[in-house]
């Protein structure tokens, strides 16, 4: 039953709350995706995994990565939104990300960033919460007053028109890919620091044992 403890962590309740919104939106794909991710987290929590240093590979070769992301954005931007080409390109990245996150090792406890975060995390949480609630209020307003949707635009309504041109899609994809790479770098940083602490603790324990043996 220990795998259900993960439901006490923030990620699962947030995913389930988002699932409810997607049910109201009548979006089957998003509902399955969010509910499925909550189930994936639950399943993953029950797995015996090795503690390690983040995902395989390393976030180096910046220029190669930047060139790759630019080429990806330029090519995928040729396909208009919601076309087979755009969907295939997004799904390919999604599958790669899923393989990376599911296959990656479990994080090794708290990272070195913990001290740097302190109590100030609430500032970011408050901004995120206000943005989410405002987006939700726009969505609800659109449902309540469908004839007056222009007065309550969701972020999608504002960004969507920018993605009708190649340049708009190129910029969006470039930012999205860069955000994904940055996320990966932070993840690797968290894992590496966690693993370093894990290794340091193991070395310390080993040294203590050797001293005691003497």
């Amino acid at each position, binding site marked *: 039953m220990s795998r259900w403890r993960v439901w006490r*962590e*923030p*990620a*699962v309740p*947030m*995913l389930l709350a988002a699932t409810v919104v997607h049910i109201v939106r009548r*979006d089957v*794909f*998003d509902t399955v995706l*969010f509910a499925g*991710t909550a189930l*994936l*987290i639950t399943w*993953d*929590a029950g797995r015996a995994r090795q503690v390690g240093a983040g995902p395989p590979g390393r976030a180096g070769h910046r220029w190669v990565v930047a060139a790759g992301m630019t080429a990806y954005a330029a090519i*995928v931007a040729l396909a208009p*939104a919601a076309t087979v080409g*755009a*969907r295939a390109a*997004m799904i390919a*990245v*999604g599958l790669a*990300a*899923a393989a990376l996150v599911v296959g990656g090792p*479990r*994080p090794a*406890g*708290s*990272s*070195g*960033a*913990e001290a*740097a*975060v*302190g109590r*100030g995390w609430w*500032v*970011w949480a408050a*901004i995120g919460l*206000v*943005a989410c609630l*405002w987006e939700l209020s*726009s969505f609800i307003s659109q449902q309540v007053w469908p004839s007056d949707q222009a*007065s*309550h*635009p969701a*972020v999608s309504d504002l960004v*969507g028109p920018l*993605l009708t041109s190649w340049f708009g*899609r190129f910029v*969006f*994809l470039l930012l*999205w890919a860069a955000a*994904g790479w940055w*996320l990966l770098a*932070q*993840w690797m*940083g*968290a894992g590496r620091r*966690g693993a370093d602490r894990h290794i340091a603790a193991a070395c310390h324990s080993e040294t203590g044992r050797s001293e005691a043996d003497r």
Partner: protein
Amino acid sequence: MRTVTIALYVACALALVISELLARYSRARIPRLADLLRWMLRRRSTQIGVVMAWWWIGWHFLGSGA
């Protein structure tokens, strides 16, 4: 009302930028976004959730065309 709605989105975006600037260049006890993220990513559930949320943003705008 449309202007107010958009203004609050812009205010949230500005608040994010200002928070990061304060975290980097002032003595305010606000963590940098990168530190916050590394702290959050200690948890396996957050790793999976954050990666999925990132991918979904791309899908939402370009895959599903919402």
